């Protein structure tokens, strides 16, 4: 009994101390600001440790060292751009927004119309009147990726990725298939049939994350359009034909794998799928996991059409509300676009740098030589188009397209599913 009372007393004491400790912010970063004007800003990113998180930490550490009057703290948001957007929503609802964030392309319109932010052009004219930072570093084409449906530049393009066709060269060589056979989707389909007949393995896997980026690339490469004049336009003959080829591979020929992203890529790395169509950001993971010769080429096109891909990744947007923070965020943002920063960033994430000068940088060039799978991704940037972002109810629209994909890959009629999806989206535009 004595011991128990003692235990109880200790327990209450500990609880009291704990509460006190909690109040004092033990275990959390306390913000002791020196009397000098140090501006603290927060940077939200989506880079897990295995996808550039370390690079982000290095960049931030370096910036903090060289800019003693601006201190940046970086926060990782799990679950990619969707997760970041969720956290941003909560932050906005409680009026404690971060100062600079990565916004995924699919969220351009949603972010632009619902959140308070400072456009790059406004930041430049406010804090850098005579510089031409934006026009000097970005081409018009690159900037177009970050414009909302009203043509307003919401942020500066930061991470750029394109989908590329990875293939298991060891397996393809074994069955006499050349990379040149994979230049068209029809060729890919044929190769997949060959692989399946000869080895029983799947021929193709197209990524299936919580968005339809890769599927859009397939449609665009048959000359179809996803959005036209602000309305969904993928239910066209060309769009249907593209999806039909895909569906036949999955449902009829059973040469293409239909499974969530992680499972599909694991199957490819394990040598059970010959070809994988996914983002260049997976290149270093693929390279270090496989035990066969893996290579990549540019996205296929349909016969008679050009290969067109939507660009992936994100932009940096300034969400700070007070001038001091906005200015600090702008300084930090410019630092992130230094050639050396961009090369570090690219090496860590597998994304492509958004500025032409970084692409020409010798460090980057030698990095690409060591990682040849980046080459096709770079080659596609000049012809890439913005990732579709519907002006109104964009999140719903993306979900509708995901649903259409799931239905088609389960066997529903391509024609009627695409038609219904298009109508549903356009009802809300």
């Amino acid at each position, binding site marked *: 009994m004595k011991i128990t009372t003692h235990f109880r007393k200790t327990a209450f004491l500990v609880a009291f101390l*704990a509460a006190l400790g909690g109040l004092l912010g*033990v275990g959390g970063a306390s913000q002791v600001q020196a009397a000098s004007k140090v501006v603290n800003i927060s940077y939200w990113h989506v880079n897990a440790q295995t996808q550039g998180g370390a690079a982000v930490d290095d960049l931030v550490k370096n910036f903090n060292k060289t800019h003693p009057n601006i201190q940046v703290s970086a926060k990782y948001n799990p679950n*990619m751009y969707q997760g970041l957007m969720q956290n941003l929503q909560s932050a906005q609802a409680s009026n404690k927004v971060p100062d600079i964030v990565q916004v995924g392309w699919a969220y351009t319109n949603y972010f632009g119309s619902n959140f308070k932010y400072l456009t790059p052009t406004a930041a430049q004219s406010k804090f850098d009147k005579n510089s031409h930072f934006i026009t000097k570093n970005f081409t018009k084409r690159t900037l177009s990726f970050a414009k909302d449906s009203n043509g307003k530049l919401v942020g500066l393009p930061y991470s750029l990725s394109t989908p590329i066709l990875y293939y298991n060269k060891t397996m393809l060589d074994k069955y006499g298939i050349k990379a040149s056979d994979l230049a068209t989707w029809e060729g890919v389909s044929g190769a997949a049939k060959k692989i399946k007949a000869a080895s029983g393995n799947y021929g193709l896997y197209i990524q299936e994350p919580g968005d339809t980026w890769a599927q859009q690339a397939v449609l665009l490469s048959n000359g179809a359009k996803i959005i036209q004049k602000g309305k969904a336009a993928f239910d066209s003959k060309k769009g249907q034909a593209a999806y039909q080829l895909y569906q036949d591979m999955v449902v009829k020929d059973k040469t293409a794998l239909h499974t969530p992203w992680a499972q599909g890529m694991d199957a490819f790395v394990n040598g059970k799928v010959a070809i994988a169509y996914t983002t260049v950001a997976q290149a270093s993971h693929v390279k270090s996991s496989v035990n066969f010769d893996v290579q990549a080429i540019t996205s296929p096109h349909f016969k008679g059409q050009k290969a067109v891909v939507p660009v992936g990744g994100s932009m940096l947007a300034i969400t700070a509300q007070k001038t001091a923070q906005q200015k600090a965020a702008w300084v930090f943002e410019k630092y992130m676009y230094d050639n050396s920063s961009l090369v570090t960033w690219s090496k860590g994430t597998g994304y492509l740098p958004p500025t032409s000068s970084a692409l020409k940088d010798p460090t980057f060039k030698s990095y690409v030589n060591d990682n040849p799978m980046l080459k096709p991704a770079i080659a596609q940037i000049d012809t890439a188009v913005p990732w579709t972002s519907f002006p109104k109810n964009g999140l719903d629209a993306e979900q509708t397209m995901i649903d259409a994909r799931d239905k088609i890959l389960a066997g529903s009629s391509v024609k009627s599913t695409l038609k219904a999806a298009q109508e549903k989206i356009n009802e809300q535009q």
Partner: protein
Amino acid sequence: MRPFKANGWHLLLLVICLALILPVLFMVANSFKTLQDSYHTMWQLIPLHPTLKNYQTLSRQVALLRLIWNTFFMATLVTLGKLSTGLLAAYAFQYFHFRGKKWVYFAFVATIFIPFTVTMIPNYLVIAKANLLNTALGVALPQLCDATGIMIFLKAMAKIPRSLIESAYLDQIPTHRLLMNIIIPILRPSIISIGAIFFINSWNEYVWPTLILKDKSSFTLPLALQNYISSEGGTNFPLAMALATIMIIVPLVIYMVFQRYILNSISNSGLK
């Protein structure tokens, strides 16, 4: 005949044990594999080229001790909170009489049935307004009560013979003494067992802490695990498994120490 039958049952139970434990072994085995091996020697529980590299990378990239401390601190705070509030409330329900007791109890128990999607955002707003973002208290505050604790303590208290309580009243022992010196010692097994369960659950919690904790220095282990799961860049499975193995150590130790209580008296009072 009888031993044969019994062996049949044992076989079934052993199969169940295997099915439950194999994933654990798989997790630990993978934490010692290289990335290539984890893909290409999937079925092997003994790694082909065993390596400590995953653990070394982890200790380099994350402050492991800090993470463990943060998680431990948080879980302890929440557990002590749930235990104290639970005991006080159960005592009140068991030994006090007041109007509307039934309704208050109903309201308390109903809180178990409220899905977390309902409470996430409003709680976040409250914590943010109270300036408790990024603190351990901010994470712990909404979790300081658990109606399941109240229910269990109530059941246990109900088994204490009335005569004991009545004699305490006759001797004019004040309430808090009754609680501290008589009831709690009797309830000790329940307290320990439900406390261990609260602790382990809080240890593994990640949905709510993700909203509140922002700085790496205040992260808990489950949050750090999120850092190693990436759909975009591909998940390094063995690395994640190494962190998962580290995550399980404290709960396992607590389990080994208190399993006698946990497994024997989740609902008994252990009255001697």
